[in-house]
């Protein structure tokens, strides 16, 4: 049977099992770990299929779900979603591990929700029916709301509500867009929609396209989050428990960028191209702004959160260059950000477990009592600032290269973010890890324990792997993004009769588009 279905069903079943299984917290942890590990192993099985399938879908299941309106359970994987699914299934067991001691109350519920979150997130990436996509989108929202609201820190209710309201505000618009599309086309199915657009069966007027694009875009942009819709993110991160932050930063934010690539570009190609200029502007502002604000954060989690704003700005920039390089880089950067920022949040969580503070000022000289912790943090920071041979470099390089193909000024501006990222990460590292060790730190901070190693080591390995042997990952991504680019072009040709989109930038390279 199609492994995708198992990957969706098992965590959901695990959710029920963990919730209902009698017994103590230990059982819940073990069960959650077992389920998530099995899911991860299963998800590895997706790789050969996707590699073999090239740009087409693999592991397809297409069943009718609701007859009227025609909603189908249509799931499949391609190069775009493959690695995101794997990232999700990899991070879930890691989140189980890092919460082992961190979560000490309502343990069962915590792990159950974590598994439910996994289902929701994987579902978002594999759904090919717009309605199903929306369902999973919302399903993933609920567990995260509870993870923040129940297991968070002092201002958790505020943060959870802010998170929920921001995201909901966006997704309502998207739902409206989805329903409007259904009314126009009679289907929720993504591939049928594409066919209709290609064949001309579905002709959206420019105004319609623009409004629909906007509806989808705002929803995705909030999730990304794109400047200036990002203010929910620092609050949510600061208040969320460690595992919540990891899932939020590593996977949930990718829902937004994934949505942009999967839906906004191919479904509304003209509107997307027309809007590229101001979206890129926002992305670049986000890159610089996020980095600058990161620089002055006294709170470690806030710092990492703002750095996420900066990093995801690169992803959005890459997407809206409409170049193979940019799109490849953007997709790769999604994964990179998931790995390195996830690792950063894990490490900050480790620190919090020791010292019960997120303020940088509460730390100092950690390298003396905990050299390995310091080493791992340094590697992660370096990955995050885009050092070559570590993962982020590849993504950022490709994105900037893609931008350079379109408009060199974009590259110049965005590349300053790379410089600034070194500032804030190294300053943080200096303040927290180097220097003399104050007494409280010496007392509380111990080096990594085996369980903690198990949580962080896979990510460290991935950072190096993704930075050096990129060919392990790239072929499916390139195939998928080439397909999507092609899609936007096909539409552009088809819609020639409409007033053509003005050239985005003067001096575009001939081979750029």
């Amino acid at each position: 049977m199609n492994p995708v279905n198992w990957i969706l069903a098992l965590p959901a079943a695990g959710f029920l099992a963990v919730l209902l299984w009698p017994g103590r917290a230990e059982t819940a942890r073990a069960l959650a770990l077992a389920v998530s590990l099995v899911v991860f192993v299963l998800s590895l099985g997706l790789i050969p299929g996707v590699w073999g399938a090239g740009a087409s879908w693999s592991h397809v299941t297409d069943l009718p779900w609701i007859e009227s309106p025609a909603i189908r359970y249509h799931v499949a994987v391609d190069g775009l979603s493959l690695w995101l699914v794997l990232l999700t299934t990899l991070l879930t067991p890691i989140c189980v591990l890092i919460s082992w001691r961190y979560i000490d109350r309502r343990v069962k519920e915590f792990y159950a929700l974590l598994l439910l979150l996994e289902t929701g997130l994987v579902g978002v990436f594999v759904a090919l029916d717009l309605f199903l996509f929306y369902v999973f989108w919302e399903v993933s929202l609920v567990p995260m709301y509870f993870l923040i609201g129940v297991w968070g820190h002092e201002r958790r209710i505020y943060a959870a509500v802010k998170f929920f309201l921001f995201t909901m505000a966006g997704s309502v618009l998207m739902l409206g867009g989805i329903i409007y599309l259904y009314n126009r086309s009679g289907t929720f199915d993504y591939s049928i929609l594409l066919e209709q657009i290609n064949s001309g069966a579905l002709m959206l007027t420019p105004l319609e396209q623009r409004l629909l694009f906007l509806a989808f875009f705002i929803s995705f942009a909030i999730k990304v989050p794109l400047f200036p819709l990002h203010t929910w993110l620092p609050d949510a991160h600061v208040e969320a428990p460690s595992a919540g932050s990891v899932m939020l930063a590593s996977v949930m934010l990718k829902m937004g960028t994934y949505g942009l690539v999967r839906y906004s570009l191919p479904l509304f190609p003209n509107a997307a191209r027309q809007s590229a200029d101001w979206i890129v502007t926002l992305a670049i502002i986000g890159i610089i702004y996020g980095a600058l604000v990161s620089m002055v954060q006294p709170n470690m989690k806030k710092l990492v959160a703002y750095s996420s704003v900066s990093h995801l700005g690169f992803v959005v920039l890459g997407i809206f260059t409409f170049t193979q390089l940019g799109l490849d880089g953007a997709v790769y950067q999604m994964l990179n950000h998931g790995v390195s920022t996830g690792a950063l949040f894990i490490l900050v969580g480790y620190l919090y477990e020791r010292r019960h503070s997120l303020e940088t000022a509460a730390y100092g000289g950690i390298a003396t009592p905990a050299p390995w912790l310091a080493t791992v943090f340094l590697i992660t920071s370096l990955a995050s600032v885009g050092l070559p041979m570590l993962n982020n470099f590849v993504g950022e390089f490709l994105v900037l290269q893609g931008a350079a193909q379109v408009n060199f000024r974009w590259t110049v501006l965005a590349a300053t973010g790379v410089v600034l990222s070194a500032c804030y990460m190294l300053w943080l590292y200096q303040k927290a890890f180097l220097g003399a060790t104050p007494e409280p730190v010496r007392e509380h901070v111990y080096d990594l324990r085996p369980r903690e190693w198990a949580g962080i080591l896979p990510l460290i390995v991935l950072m190096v792997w993704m930075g050096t042997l990129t060919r392990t990952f790239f072929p499916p991504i390139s195939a998928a993004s080439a397909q999507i680019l092609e899609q936007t072009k096909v539409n552009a040709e088809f819609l020639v009769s409409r007033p053509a989109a003005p050239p985005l930038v003067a001096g575009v390279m001939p081979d750029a588009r």
Partner: protein
Amino acid sequence: MQHLWLIPALPLAGFLVNGIFGRRVSKGVINLVAIGSVALSFVWVLKTLAALGPLETPHVERYFTWIESGILSVPVEFAVDRLTAVMLLVVTGVGLLIHIYSIGYMGHEGGYHRFFAFMNLFMFFMLTLVLANNYLLMFVGWEGVGLSSYLLIGFYFLRKSATTAANKAFIVNRIGDFGFSLAMFLMVVRLGGLDFPRVFSAAQAMPRETDPGLLTLIALLLFVGATGKSAQIPLYVWLPDAMEGPTPVSALIHAATMVTAGVYMIARSAPLYQQAPIAMDVVAVVGLATAFVAATIGLTQFDIKKVFAYSTVSQLGYMMLAVGVGAYAGGIFHLVTHAFFKALLFLGAGSVIHALAGEQDLRKMGGLRRKIPVTFATLVCAGVAIAGIPPFSGFFSKDEILLAAHHHAPWLYWVGVLTAAMTAFYVFRAIFLAFFGDYQGEHHPHESPPSMLGPLVVLAAFSLAGGFLPVSRFLEPLFPAGEAHHDPALVVVSVIAGLLGLGLAWYLYVARRGLADRIAARLGALYQVVYNKYFVDELYNAAIVQPVVKGSEALLWRRMDAGVIDGAVNGIASRARAIGAVLRLMQSGNIRSYAAWVLMGSVVALIALGFSGGAR
């Protein structure tokens, strides 16, 4: 297949072994791994070069594709040509000597394994930089040496000054790398790739740019990278601070190898620069300005390592001047001799510091020549080499540069000669202050162990005789031919300048002690400005760092993020609340109120149904 990959891979393996297991094994094992890996790497370089013969064409080895996407394909590809061969020998050779030296120097320090692991990591990245056959792979080494430099400057991480200096080095280098990466982006888009042969042939296919154009832009952006790495104006500020690291680090990274990477890169990109004469002029002028300014600062410093650090900046400026005026071979030649004598200067200084248990202030030394004679002798060798006294190594390389500069524009030559005089002066000033006169310190000085003296002696030999190495002739075929020009008069002038500097140092610091202080007092404000390094650090801090940090904090975070954006969101929310006052009242949490609303809703629905004819 020569398995070039082994050259960097061996130190990498050393790094991994020492980094992971170093804490648990004895110093002997650490030494074996660290020095053994570098020695093997050196041997492998020798073996490879022997096997490859005269290297008339580059030897290229391709391993795997690193990045491939769209129009871009970057392989991991190593190449050896004559330039690389020279660099390989310098890096592994000097590197090996400094590793051996470190056994003695670092013997009493904590974090022994960490030190050697980082040193090996540096070797790995430096060799990658040198071997790379495309700009991106070079960039890997480029950033990687920056990382190792960061790690090693911050080696004494308990000291805030050390970690701050490390951060400064990394961030300033990042600014340079910013330029480098922009250059790469332009290359991919306009020149079709990053492989050296491809870029160069594309560049040569374009017309020579007498007005600023694409190639000039690329060349200048690359030069921004070089100013960061090779400590040129305006990004030289990190190098003097980098002396916070252990002295062998200063010798290896901040004198002999890493900082010369910028010179190597420009020499490597010679075909590109050759097409962009304006960029070359910029390189030459910036290089000369750096040489001059750093030399003036070097005149006044009292920290022995700071003196040599500014000397390094100054000498790097010389090399830049060389490549800027087209004397690439000369620049590389100076790079090689500089690697010998500057490494020797630093190692000698390290030996002095070691002898005095950590004292670095020249004013607290003096009269050491009898107490640590070997160190003294070797430092004098280094001094005569850097001062350009014939027939020692510095004379040959510096002369080549100055002659080329004169051929380009005479004023470059005259400033260069003045700088050479200053160089001789401040180096010997340091030597005289440390070794002559009476001892001013409290510690009992002792000569360093043989593991330290051995490398000193070897380097001293090379400093003295290195000028006879045929580096320039070996490299000549690689570079666009410059006309041979030899003017004995100019040579004599520069030698006299060097001797004058030396003599002045003797006069002021040995013959008439105390005169120097009076002169300094007479010069007053000017002396203070120079002594404080022209207040450049303070200027950068006030003009760039503080505004950015303060602005980010006050304006962006507090005002923009918390004020405007959240304010706007809250504003929308409160307006919605005002509009929806009635709706809000509905949400009272009172079940019966809800029921009443439901009731009203159903009535309305019924009526609507009636009107719409649903109920007929």
